[in-house]
């Protein structure tokens, strides 16, 4: 039965990749998804169809230029239109973009060079507080009581410095990454985990405590308002002129800010993706892999391990720094609560869920976690609470939904859901949803302790860069050989 299903799926995949079929299919799917979301802007399944359709071209064999054109169509035309109709989707996509960049940065540290980092949010915090400080009235409030603003206080800078600060965020976060990297060079394995964890906690607590003696961060009160880059009237008018009939109503300034931040985040993510791809293929990327696999051997081959580890920390941190600046501006509010250990673990989860070391993998990881968190679990809870408020009941056992205990609300138990997902992923698919090509090639036959040898024997190395997620599953159970036993 299983092989039959597999054959059937393989046939579909083969069919979809033949001749002109993929062109029609992907375009059709995107148009269909767009129409669905357009017609019912609040339906989450419709959104999922659209999201899946938008991701589809990546997996099909098509002309690169056509793929690019599709991507541009989706990202620059369709998403803003849908987003203007329902800003929630834009927010979801914005967060996907932000967390994708974070996950890509962490992936460089954890996935490429194998340095476990539990304090990644610290770099995000550095970027966020950088613009929060300079982009608000804070420099004039150094001696004020936290949370108070004397009337008439000016902003420190003009809002358009924001664009420069994205670059400054990159530089400052990279420097902080180097500072963390220096002591870390001597430390390995689990010690690294605890040191980075401690570092993340130090940064959060500093943000929480530095409201005295000089009020730098406003402490737990957080900094607000933070300026956003200015939006000339003309831009909104221009957008409305073209898209108003499609959106159905004119877009307000505030809504347009959502689109603007989405576009900025998109640019940052694309830059991040390009950089990571280039790094992965570069000499440096291969050196990182060598360090990850065997540092001693790598050093013996003449790879400057310390310098490369520092670089990994700096590059990974810089992504987070840029996104931090963006975060501060889009929220207009920054407080230490956003940078806790749980957030760091959240980003790590995205990396691992998607496929550690795999660039499309971590993006998928970020997408899955965000959609699960913001849409699926929340709306399932809402659905349950609606049932509870109605007279509906389950017929055969005569169970009225309104008798369902209030404690059984899925949105209250998101950590439980994530925890179980993490455990199951680690047991059944430790290489992630979309394993890295290099990892797949590295996977060797190795029977596991509890008799999964059969599954392991089946999965051989997969031919190419995860073109075929279906066969990937077999080899993913085939975990890399135990490398830590003495």
């Amino acid at each position, binding site marked *: 039965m299983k092989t039959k299903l597999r054959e059937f799926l393989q046939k*579909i995949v083969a*069919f979809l990749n033949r001749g002109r079929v993929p062109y029609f*299919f992907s375009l*059709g*799917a995107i148009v*269909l998804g767009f129409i*669905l979301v357009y*017609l*019912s*802007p*609040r*339906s989450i*399944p*419709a959104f999922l*169809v659209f999201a899946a359709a938008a991701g589809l071209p990546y997996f099909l064999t098509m002309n690169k230029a056509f793929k690019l054109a599709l991507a541009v169509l989706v990202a620059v035309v369709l998403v803003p239109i849908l987003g203007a109709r*329902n*800003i*929630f989707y*834009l*927010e*979801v996509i914005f*967060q996907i973009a932000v967390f994708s960049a974070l996950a890509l940065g962490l992936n460089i540290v954890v996935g490429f060079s194998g340095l476990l980092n539990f304090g990644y949010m610290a770099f995000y915090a550095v970027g966020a507080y950088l613009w929060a400080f300079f982009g608000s009235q804070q420099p004039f409030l150094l001696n004020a*009581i*936290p*949370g*108070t603003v004397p009337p008439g206080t000016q902003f420190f800078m003009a809002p358009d410095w924001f664009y420069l600060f994205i670059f400054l965020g990159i530089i400052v976060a990279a420097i902080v990454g180097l500072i963390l990297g220096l002591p870390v060079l001597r430390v390995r394995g689990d010690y690294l985990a605890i040191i980075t964890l401690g570092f993340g906690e130090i940064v959060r607590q500093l943000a*929480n*405590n530095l409201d005295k003696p000089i009020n730098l961060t406003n*402490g*737990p*009160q*957080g900094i*607000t308002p933070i300026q956003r880059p200015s939006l000339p009237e003309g831009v909104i008018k221009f957008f409305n002129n073209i898209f108003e009939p499609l959106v159905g109503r004119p877009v*307000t300034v*505030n*809504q347009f800010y*959502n689109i603007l931040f989405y576009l900025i985040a998109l640019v940052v993510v694309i830059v991040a993706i390009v950089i990571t791809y280039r790094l992965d293929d570069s000499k440096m990327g291969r050196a990182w892999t060598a360090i990850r696999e065997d540092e001693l051997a790598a050093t013996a081959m003449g790879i400057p391990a310390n310098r490369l580890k520092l670089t990994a920390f700096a590059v990974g941190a810089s992504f987070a720094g840029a996104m931090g600046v963006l975060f501060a501006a889009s*929220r*207009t*509010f920054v*407080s230490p*609560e*956003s940078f806790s250990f*749980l*957030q760091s673990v959240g980003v790590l989860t995205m990396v691992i869920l998607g496929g550690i070391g795999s660039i499309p993998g971590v993006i998928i990881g970020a997408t899955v976690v965000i959609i699960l*968190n*913001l849409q699926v679990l*929340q709306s399932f*809870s*809402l659905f349950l*609470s*609606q049932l509870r*408020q109605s007279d509906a009941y389950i017929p055969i056992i005569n169970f009225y939904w309104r008798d369902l205990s*209030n404690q059984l*609300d899925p*949105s*209250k*138990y*998101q*950590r439980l859901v994530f925890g179980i997902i993490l455990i199951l992923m680690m047991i059944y698919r430790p290489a992630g949803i979309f394993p890295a090509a290099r990892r797949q090639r590295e996977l060797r036959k190795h029977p596991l302790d509890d008799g999964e040898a059969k599954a392991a024997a089946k999965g051989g190395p997969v031919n190419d860069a995860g073109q075929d997620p279906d066969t990937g599953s077999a080899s993913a159970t085939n975990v890399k050989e135990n490398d830590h036993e003495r």
Partner: protein
Amino acid sequence: MRNRYILVVMSLAVMGLLLAGCGAADPKVIKIATQSPLSGGMSAVGTDIKNGAQLAMEQLSGPLVAMGFKVELAAFDDQGNPDTGVANAKNIVSDPAILAIVGHYNSGVQIPASEEYHAAGLANVSPANTNPKVTERGYLEVSRICGRDDVQGAVGAQFANGKGIKSAYVLHDKTAYGQGIAEYFKRESETLGIKVLGFAGTEEKANFDSILSPILAAKPEVIYFGGMFDQAAVLFKQARQKGYMGMFLSDDGFDSSDAAKIGGAALLEGAGTYFSTVAGPAAAYPGTAKFQADFKAKFGGEPQPFAAQSYDSMAIVLKAIENAALAADKKMPARADVAKAVRALKDFPGITGTFTFNSKGDLAKAKYFIIQVTSGDPANWSQNKIDRILDIAPPQ
């Protein structure tokens, strides 16, 4: 092969149409959203904010139902996280059936999320966000029925001064809420001539040994704690056990019978324990007593701080929607009209007071009670003695 291709597309299309059908909304459904942390460490208070609102909706939505509306609660979990809170806010804003939102526990979430409510003209009544900045922005949509940090801290200091206290040690929980109150307590104390011997924050939940050492050495007449009962009561108990005999003073985060459960008789020893609050004690206010009984019957536990405020927030929202619907000829009212109707309420009677909003969205005049803990038994929490009542208008 060709057929299969068409089949896939067809099935997708059918699925899509089905989904589209699901999305169509019933025009007579009114939804009111809540947002509070339902998961994670703050979920004890956050869940009861939701529960308080739910109770109010069940008890008070009668007039709207009589007009033919179906009233529903849409409870969102903001996880105490601004990212989630803002995303939920956008989700809420984009649902045309939602006419108002009761919510937020963390000011850190409310402030960015309410930017979205403001942009969409959606009325937000906050039960728990005491940070001055919540209303200082002057948004028509954002109102709150809890006190402001700057007022409540000052109330505590005035009370201490009235008791003839000359020295104080101020602690807070390093949240925006607790720190805000503590800062203003300190400031008012200093202007009144009370010596502030120390000012410190702690995220510690259980072990206050090391923080208490300098306090005991300083021998203040009162220890003020800005924060929630779950920390304050533990701190007070440990201070008594270390031999401190002065007065304890805290804020409305202390108003939970569980404070007595944790603190026990230690709260009564020495110079006793007092707290300031905007909700009158249940014994003196029949509305509060009924609320507590109903709440316990429905949800099984004592209401946490801000549950009563959440009940009142929902009551205000329901009344405002009712008024707006009446004005709109029993049709679905517009969001902007609901927001205006919230502000138009005059002397609305709730269980924690009577409410009139000023132009910023603060209560025009809030009653502050200073309550003395008179029993270490949680069952007698509602009999606590009112020591003073102050009517205070927020700063303009």
